[in-house]
């Protein structure tokens, strides 16, 4: 990098010092929220709703169970607080409180979880190891390749999952292929219409694997329907994730073991058309 360009990069780095504190605080909060994809628990909501639909009496059973559990908890708390000091139950609650206390390096009001990476970093004191890790990360970072729309569509396997039908008014924004150990791991392509955007992430991954790191709802292609998609977009709105018809969910294509994650703002009908246009024949 030239000296001049580095100086400009430094100017941007310094300008970031003035970022609104609420944004920085939000980056700490994200740690607890923690999720690949949508960042909320849509999957759980969907599962619960489906269960209630199948078993109309389910909600009453759940309410009864909740009542019993709450009663048991209240009884437990009562016992703990009224135990004489020094009993095992009291020690247990103190231990728990200690474990739940924020880490020393955590932000105010944040639990230990949010502060964990800081304390980890503070403990990593072997500079050589750090340098090696940094070099490794740099190598990894360079494995993102920018593509044109045509190039993205021509990718082996993943190219077939770049939607042929794009919602009206949306235009190509970006495409990037991510590699790990020389193997193409994922392909991401984005389209924009004013402030609205659609991002499609395509990767080869089993359903089980995806569920391990994401809480986004995931469906089989055969399950896709207008009603289902409308429901997903509505849920995202209810959760306050977006004010427009935004949503995030994934579609699993069993034949190729491919997961396509949709994130964006578009009309349900158009989203459905787009997802149903996959996979297309690779040109």
């Amino acid at each position, binding site marked *: 990098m030239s000296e001049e*360009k580095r100086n400009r990069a430094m100017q941007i780095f310094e300008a970031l*010092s003035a970022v609104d504190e609420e944004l920085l605080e939000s980056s700490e909060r994200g740690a607890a929220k923690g999720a690949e994809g949508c960042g909320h628990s849509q999957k759980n909501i969907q599962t619960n709703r489906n269960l209630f639909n199948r078993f109309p009496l389910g909600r009453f059973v759940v309410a009864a169970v909740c009542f019993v559990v709450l009663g048991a908890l209240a009884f437990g708390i009562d016992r703990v607080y009224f135990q004489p000091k020094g009993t095992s139950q009291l020690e247990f609650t103190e231990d728990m409180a200690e474990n739940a206390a924020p880490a020393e390096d955590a932000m*105010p009001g944040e639990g230990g979880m949010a502060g964990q990476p800081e304390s980890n970093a503070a403990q990593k004191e072997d500079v050589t190891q750090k340098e090696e890790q940094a070099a490794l990360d740099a190598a990894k970072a360079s494995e993102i390749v920018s593509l044109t729309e045509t190039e993205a569509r021509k990718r082996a396997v993943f190219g077939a999952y770049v939607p042929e039908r794009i919602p009206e008014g949306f235009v190509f924004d970006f495409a990037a292929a991510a590699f790990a150990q020389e193997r193409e791991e994922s392909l991401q392509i984005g389209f924009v219409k004013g402030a609205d955007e659609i991002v499609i992430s395509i990767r080869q991954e089993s359903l089980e694997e995806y569920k391990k790191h994401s809480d986004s709802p995931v469906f089989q292609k055969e399950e896709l329907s207008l009603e289902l998609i409308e429901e997903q977009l509505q849920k995202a709105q209810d959760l306050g994730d977006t004010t427009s018809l935004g949503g995030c969910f994934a579609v699993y294509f069993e034949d190729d073991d491919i997961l396509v994650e949709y994130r964006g703002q578009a009309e349900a009908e158009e989203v459905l058309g787009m997802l149903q246009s996959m996979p297309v024949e690779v040109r």
Partner: protein
Amino acid sequence: MKDKDIIDLYWQRDERAIAETQVLYGKYCYSIAFRILRNREDSDECVNDTWMRTWNAIPPKYPERLALFLGTITRNLSFDKWKRKNAGKRGSGEMMITLDELAECVPAAVSTEETVENAELERTINLFLYTLSERDRNIFLRRYWFVEEYSDIAARYHMKLNTVKTSLFRTRKKLKAYLEKEGIWV
């Protein structure tokens, strides 16, 4: 001790304020310094300087978020030290990689325009961050404010490494386009 109590100690000019700050935020500030400097002694020095700066700043300041107030001072001091130590060097390490990445956001040169004032650049970058999704913004800040490694960010948000990489790659492109659109020439 709570933040408010510590700040009250500063306002009372009670030196216990520094000890309490060290207890509560020592590791937090050290980690910010260490990520930039990658050197124990230098990081310790910056953290100690942070306490001195804070002592001089409060009062009259009354920070709403003490951790971020301290963290910002540490970040600035650490980066100043890093610049002094690396002036004119080609260098390597995480900070250099971070700057290499940020260089991708530098808008294409337009000869007729003048270099933007720092305050204007700060305001524009701040506005840009509000245009991002919460997820992309958080990843961007962890990388370029806290200088966290990709793997740490992925672990923090329970994401795949590639998701982090792609998000950053894309946000850098967006920032460059945004700065160009706003006529910002760094």
